[in-house]
């Protein structure tokens, strides 16, 4: 039999806790802005970088740039120096100015394509999700379009049209539409089974009203995230198209064009390719970070960081 120690001896064995201070130290509270930054670091970083690039594009003429098309044959292929920060190309044009102005082309294509393809994709996705008989037809068409690799589709389109900014945006948009429409269709199909949509139908709400009030607002979040990814891939596609000679006309400085011009010389004059490549990668990274951040912020169900 175990012998229980007497109560007073047990008390003696116990350690006595230190007395608590009278008042707990105040909880450090952060302002709403700092809380937001701490919660969504990628979103803030991406958005900040992108904002900086938009400012660069808008303020291009006042950032110490020269005329990006000005030829100076006497000063061709100069390495980076105080006069020409990023050096000059084989026609003597200032690469810094061309790269800074190139921000405009890239952002224009990125934003243009993501906006256009979102709108068209939204329309197609809604029709496909709501008009039953058209669904099979539209989705097979999208399957067909999707089975052509986007780069090749855009190249085929560009070979047959004059190289212009608008045509580049159109060609890339056509290549991106299937992805958006499929996404929207999926969202619409899952929303249609929601009890509140059933309730709206039971109340006799007309279809356009259901679409505008119940479906559209719910497609906004996934569409915004998708639009950022499309923006990133459109920028890469534009650069690829310009790089292979099927993109923005050479008269417009774009990062792909500058790299295409530096292609033949990259072994001896790597800086011609290096600077536009750096800007392109940074921009795409910014947009991708923004997309990842938006996804985590807009969809709390997603595991963070996946």
């Amino acid at each position, binding site marked *: 039999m175990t012998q229980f120690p007497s109560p007073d001896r047990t008390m003696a064995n116990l350690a006595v806790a230190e007395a608590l201070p009278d008042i707990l130290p105040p909880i450090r509270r952060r302002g709403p802005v700092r809380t937001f930054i701490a919660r969504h670091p990628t979103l803030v970083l991406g958005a900040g970088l992108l904002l900086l690039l938009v400012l660069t594009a808008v303020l291009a003429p006042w950032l110490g740039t020269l005329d990006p098309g000005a030829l100076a044959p006497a000063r061709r292929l100069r390495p980076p120096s105080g006069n020409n920060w990023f050096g000059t190309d084989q026609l003597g044009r200032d690469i810094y100015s061309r790269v800074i102005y190139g921000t405009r082309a890239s952002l224009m294509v990125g934003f243009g394509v993501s906006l256009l393809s979102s709108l068209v994709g939204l329309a197609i996705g809604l029709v496909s999700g709501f008009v039953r008989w058209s669904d099979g037809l539209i989705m097979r068409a999208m*399957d067909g379009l999707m089975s*052509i690799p986007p780069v090749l589709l855009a190249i085929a389109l560009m070979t047959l049209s004059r190289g212009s900014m608008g045509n580049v945006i159109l060609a890339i948009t056509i290549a991106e539409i299937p992805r958006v429409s499929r996404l929207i269709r999926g969202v619409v199909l899952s929303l249609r089974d929601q009890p509140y949509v059933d309730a709206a139908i039971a109340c006799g709400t007309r279809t356009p009203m259901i679409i505008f009030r119940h479906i559209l607002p719910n497609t906004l979040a996934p569409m915004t995230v998708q639009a950022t990814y499309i923006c990133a891939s459109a920028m890469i596609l534009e650069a690829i198209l310009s790089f*292979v000679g099927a993109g923005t006309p050479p008269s417009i400085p774009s990062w792909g064009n500058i790299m295409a011009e530096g*292609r033949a010389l990259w*072994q001896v004059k790597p800086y011609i390719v290096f600077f536009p490549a750096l800007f392109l990668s940074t921009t795409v990274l910014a947009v991708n970070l923004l997309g990842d951040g938006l996804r985590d912020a807009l969809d709390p169900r997603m595991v963070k960081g996946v």
Partner: protein
Amino acid sequence: MLIYLLKRLLTTVPVMLLVGLFVFSLLFVVPGDPAAMIAGDQASIADIARIRASLGLDRPFPVQFWNWLWRLAHGDLGQSIFSDQPVTMLIGQRVGPTLSLMGMTMLVSVGLAVPMGVIAAWKAGSLIDRFLMALAVLGFSLPVFVVGYMLAYVFALNLDWLPVQGYVPMDDGLWPWLSRLILPSASLGCVYVALIARITRATMLEVLTQDYVRTARAKGLGSASILMIHALKNASVPIVTVIGLGIALLIGGTVVTESVFAIPGLGRLTIDAILHRDYPVIQGVVLLCSGTYVLINLLIDLCYNLLDPRIRY
């Protein structure tokens, strides 16, 4: 199973027909005169007429499409406008390097990306997970030619470990062939690795929360056996699907990679065709690539049953 296989094969027919119709009708949809566009600014009227006739643009659309399809069914993709050679022959000459490049890239990428994703999911939230996923974001953001130039500059020009550019067929020796493929594959594979690693991590994370994984752990299985046998096998369907879908990225990247590393493959053929606005060649390459893409994804669909016996047809 056999009936399912036939059914699936049949569903690819309309998709391929659609691709064909699309690629073919581009000539008509695009505003302006495609013959004049292809001929270029310095062409005479006779040149334009010749191109129009050789593309069959002077006949009604359905007739043209049917003729084109009929010839396509017989393996005739038409003549190149620039070199007057059959497109099938031009493509045939260039398939080898591209296949080597894509095969090598897929092999290395999948071999690298799947373990990356598994490790990231296993150590989710840790430093190594963050590092691997940061690499993945970087892989998505660096365009193919940026990686290509960077790798070539460091490993070929500066360190002189590998040849800078060019291609040697496998018949000329294994090492010369392999050494010229390492840098192009590495740059082409970046996006692909990022894509597969991310999806592997995401699916593995989901599978690792399943009851049978806990049971496996409870009965004392080691981490390796849980990850490889219990988790990865159950996560394989989405991973394999993405491997198939990602081929579209690879095909697009090949065009650029071959141009950076001067590899005489299909991508190079496409770029030369762009310069001459040689639409029949581009049409041929697009059809071939889309066909391969559809076929590979069909094969992957059919493999689902091997990976996951719960999927029945």
